[in-house]
Structure formats: structure tokens, C-alpha cells
């Protein structure tokens, strides 16, 4: 048992250090090397690109070829986008969207349509 806990502590230390390392890497690297010009443009364009990729990432576990074919996710994202373009109120878009999605999956609304 103590061996198990020692292993768990060692694992925690390894994962924590490795995670911090990946987060700190660019700061360590560019504290000694001058930032190349091309990087500053990429630096500006990275956040919008990464945010959209995080949306894709959230859909990674969707089964596109099985009922309901990702329709709850896509439908909710379209509603959130429309609502946000219309009202531009972040809290409103997020809460209506999440509420709608919870309703859709808990009551399996789209599966009923496909069955």
C-alpha cells in the first residue's frame, strides 16, 4: 500500500513537472533568443485559430455515423452562433446553448427523429 502511494506521488510529480514544462517552454526559449519577425504575426493569428480548433476538439467524441449523427451538437452550435451574432451577449448565448443541449441529450430529442 505504501509502495502504491509512493508511486502515486512520483506520478503526480512527473505529470505536474511535465505539464508545467510544456506551458513554460516558449517563455524559457524566447527569454534568451530574440523573437523572429514571422513569429509575431503568427502570434497574433494563433488565438483565433486555436479557439476555433478548441470547438473542433469539443466535437472529437461525437459519433458522426451513428444516430443521432452529431445533430444535437451541430444544431446547438448553430443556435449559439445565430444568437450570439444577433444579441452579442456572451452569457445569454452560453446559457441558452447549454440548456438547449442538456434538454436535447437528456430527452434524446434527435434520436426520436431518426428512429
Amino acid at each position, binding site marked *: 500500500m505504501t509502495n502504491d502511494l509512493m508511486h502515486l506521488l512520483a506520478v503526480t510529480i512527473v505529470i505536474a513537472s511535465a505539464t508545467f514544462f510544456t*506551458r513554460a517552454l516558449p517563455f524559457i526559449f524566447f527569454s534568451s533568443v530574440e523573437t523572429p519577425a*514571422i513569429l509575431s504575426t503568427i502570434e497574433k493569428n494563433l488565438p483565433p485559430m486555436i479557439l476555433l480548433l*478548441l*470547438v*473542433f476538439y469539443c466535437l*472529437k467524441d461525437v459519433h458522426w455515423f451513428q444516430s443521432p449523427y452529431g445533430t444535437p451538437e451541430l444544431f446547438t452550435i448553430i443556435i449559439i452562433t445565430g444568437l450570439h451574432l444577433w444579441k452579442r451577449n456572451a452569457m445569454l448565448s452560453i446559457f441558452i*446553448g447549454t440548456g438547449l443541449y442538456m434538454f436535447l441529450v437528456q430527452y434524446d430529442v434527435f434520436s426520436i427523429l431518426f428512429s
Partner: protein
Amino acid sequence: MKHGTKKLLLSALKVTFPVFLGYIPLGIAFGFLFTGAGYHWVYALLMSTFIYAGSVQFISVALLAAGAGLMEFLTLTLLINLRHSFYGLSMLEKFSDTGKVKPYLIFALTDETYALLTTTKVPEGASKSTFYFYIALLDHFYWVTGSVIGAVLGSVLDFDLNGMTFVLTALFVVLTIEQYYNSQSRFPFIAAIIAGVISILLFSPKNMLLVSILIGTLILGAHEKIAQVRRTSMILDTGNKGRI
């Protein structure tokens, strides 16, 4: 002080509220899984406090059960979290004048905190480093709280949280639209769609985020290089014409 500490903390609470709604159920899921594997809740607290990286923590529960060695934990963590290096890359300037809190801001740079920090504007007259610190600390606090709740009460709780973590997807969608309003170039979104579609179709869920960021950054880099070459050749052209 132009902007009161309390007022600034309230703005940070408001900004991080969607993350609160996402991290609590996710944290509960982690804590529940973790104690389910036979560990004391104190270790869930320890991991969520010092590791603070959701996806790796989930995978580590499975790896612990499988009896994986330290090297496996190390390589897997580096691979999964390498994406965070790209986050830091776009925060070099933003974090450059944050002083004492900088190490903590770097430590706490999760997907969600990164999304908030790159999109949210610092309230007028407020200190940027304090505002960033509050956002990062609150998100961290939500994650730890969720983990402990899940680890201590996991088996007792039985309410239907199914679908609630979609709040984070909704947050990313909204922040992407905000980025769209703020950014001059449309190209990053095109790059993201190409990279996103390729990696969601061809790569496993575990790898797709890192792969898509790599592909996207390559596309951005190539696009910038082409634009640079065009600019130089235009300058050369006008230069030649001037001489003739």
C-alpha cells in the same frame, strides 16, 4: 486605486462563470473516477492542485490502473500537453509585464483560461496582471473544488449532469465569434477549418488537438511566408520602375 479590488474580482467572477459551470461537473467526474479506482480523496486534491490539466488527469487514472511506469506518464504528458506551448507562444507579449504573478499565470494556462485571457478585455483603469491573476486563480479554484466534491461525494451524488460540460463548447464558440469581430485577418479561421476537418477525420480523439494545432500553425506560417515574398517582390518591382 482607480479600480477597486472587489470590483475587479467581481468582473473576474462574471467572466469565469461559464468555466465554473464547466469545471465543476468535469472536476466531479475526475474525482469520482479517481476515488473509484481506490485512492483517497486527498490525492485528488493534490493532483488537481499541482497538475491542473484535465485531460492528462483523466488518462492518468486509467494508466495508474494499468500499472504504467513513470516514463510512460512522462511521454504521454509531454505529448498531450505540448499544445500548451503554442498557447504560451501567443502570450509572450501579453504576459511580459505581469511581474510577480507571471510564473503562476504560466502554470495555470489551461485551454479555458487561455481562451478567456486572449479574448477578454481588461476593465478600464484596472491592473492587467491582477485581472489575469484573478481569472487564472478562479478557474484553478473551480477545478480543485469540483475534483474534491466528486472525490468525497461522488458516489452519493446522483443528479443528471449529462450534457452540462457542453458549457465549455458554448464558451469556445462564443469566444471564437468574439475573436472574429476583433481580428483583422480572416485567414486564421480558414486555417482552423482546414486543420480541424483534417484532424477530426484522420486522427484519434486523443491526438487530434495537438495535430490540428500543428497543421494550423504550419498553414499560418506558409501563408505568412508567401505574403512576405509577395511584399518583397512588390517593393523590388516599384524600386525597378523608379530606376527606369
